């Protein structure tokens, strides 16, 4: 029983982290290093526990083959208040992310910004243009002719900067630019590391 509880908790922590994409039974089997039957049993247990608990705001849903944690539908109306309420910082965070990317990388296209953030940035970009903090800085060479964005004088003014050079340097940690890590290299390095440490698993 305790083993099952532990597996259930582990699965919940995995599902919590992956967010909207969810995980398939197969993925969970690989990740937890357990048998599929155990994983399914744990998922049932998790679901039952969400449903039984009146204090639970979330539950487990199977959508498109993947299990994901979602908020209970009874709170959908309440959650709408997050949209209206400016006290939730996530909207500010989105705007600030976009602004930071553009400030440091300008001129930059929307696609590049989307890539960096991993989410669509059209909304924040438009809002920031409307506020006069961003502006179009011409078009990219080539077929697409994508719009290039940059910051405005108002941006410098609002953030108390004399010029763009006054931006404090950013710390680009361990060059995680191209996150689609070359699979071969990764695998190869792993194997190489294994060779070197004598192939210990839990090294």
């Amino acid at each position, binding site marked *: 029983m305790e083993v099952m509880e532990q597996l259930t908790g582990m699965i919940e922590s995995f599902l919590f982290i992956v967010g909207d994409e969810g995980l398939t039974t197969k993925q969970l089997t690989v990740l937890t290093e357990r048998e599929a039957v155990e994983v399914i049993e744990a998922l049932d247990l998790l679901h039952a526990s969400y449903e039984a608990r009146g204090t639970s705001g979330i539950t487990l849903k199977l959508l498109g083959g993947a299990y994901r944690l979602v908020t209970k539908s009874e709170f959908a109306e309440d959650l709408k208040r997050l949209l209206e309420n400016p006290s939730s910082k996530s*909207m*500010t965070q989105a705007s*600030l*992310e976009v602004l930071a990317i553009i400030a440091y990388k300008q001129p930059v296209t929307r696609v590049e910004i989307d890539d960096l953030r*991993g989410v669509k940035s059209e909304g*924040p970009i438009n809002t920031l243009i409307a506020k006069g903090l961003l502006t179009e800085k011409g078009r990219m060479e080539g077929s697409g002719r994508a719009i290039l964005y940059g910051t405005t004088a108002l941006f410098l003014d609002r953030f108390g900067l004399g010029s763009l050079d006054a931006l404090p340097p950013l710390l680009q940690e361990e060059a995680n630019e191209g996150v689609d890590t070359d699979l*071969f290299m990764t695998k190869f390095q792993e194997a190489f590391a294994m060779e070197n440490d004598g192939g210990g698993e839990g090294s």
Partner: protein
Amino acid sequence: MSYKVKLEAFEGPLDLLLHLINRLEIDIYDIPMAELTQQYIEHLQTMRVLQLDELSEYLVLAATLIEIKSKMLLPVHEGEEFDDDMEFDMEDDPRDELVARLIEYRKYKEAAINLKESADERSDYFTRTPGDLSVFGEVIISEMEDSLSVFDLIGAFQKMLDRKRLKAPLTASIMKTERSVGEKMNEIMATLERSSGVCDFHSLFEEGDRSDLVLTFLSLLELMKRRNILVEQHGNFDELTVSFRREGE
């Protein structure tokens, strides 16, 4: 003194001094100045590779140490006659200021260690990226507060990097672990079984995408390491052959 000191091990002259005090088991409230000064200067000599600007900070403290040492050797008391067995006036101990600095610095050095511990502890908790609000209705981008500064910009950027760290490798590792080396190793052993224990190295790489090929290659390496199989080549540029390794080989 024959021990070697690593430069990077010290965060400055005070750090070095604290190190010496600990190593020599000196009472910080009653520092034997002559001994400490000598040790300190000896250390500086072994640290000659120091950058000049860094060295200057160490030298300033060396000068301070020497100054204190000399003051202690010549306790001059104004308006008083020299007394042979004069008691050392604790009120004006020339070491006071140094001791105060060392103690103050030690406090924060200690606090830095605690901070590191709490950061390590914190790294055991993972949170998630915010969910998609657009499922609840139209997202209105709220007004930005007037009080935002460049530092908020940097904070937002750092947070974004964090989220990426959480997301990107996760999906990658899920994809990667979809087929494990262990599974592939079994496959290779089964192939060998079917071809009566020997097959061409090439034949194992005839199908699959790039990641499959990598997986096959790694599985072969692992099987070789575990001494399950033998990969041989009879001459330069000959075809490699893969075979079961017999006991005792």
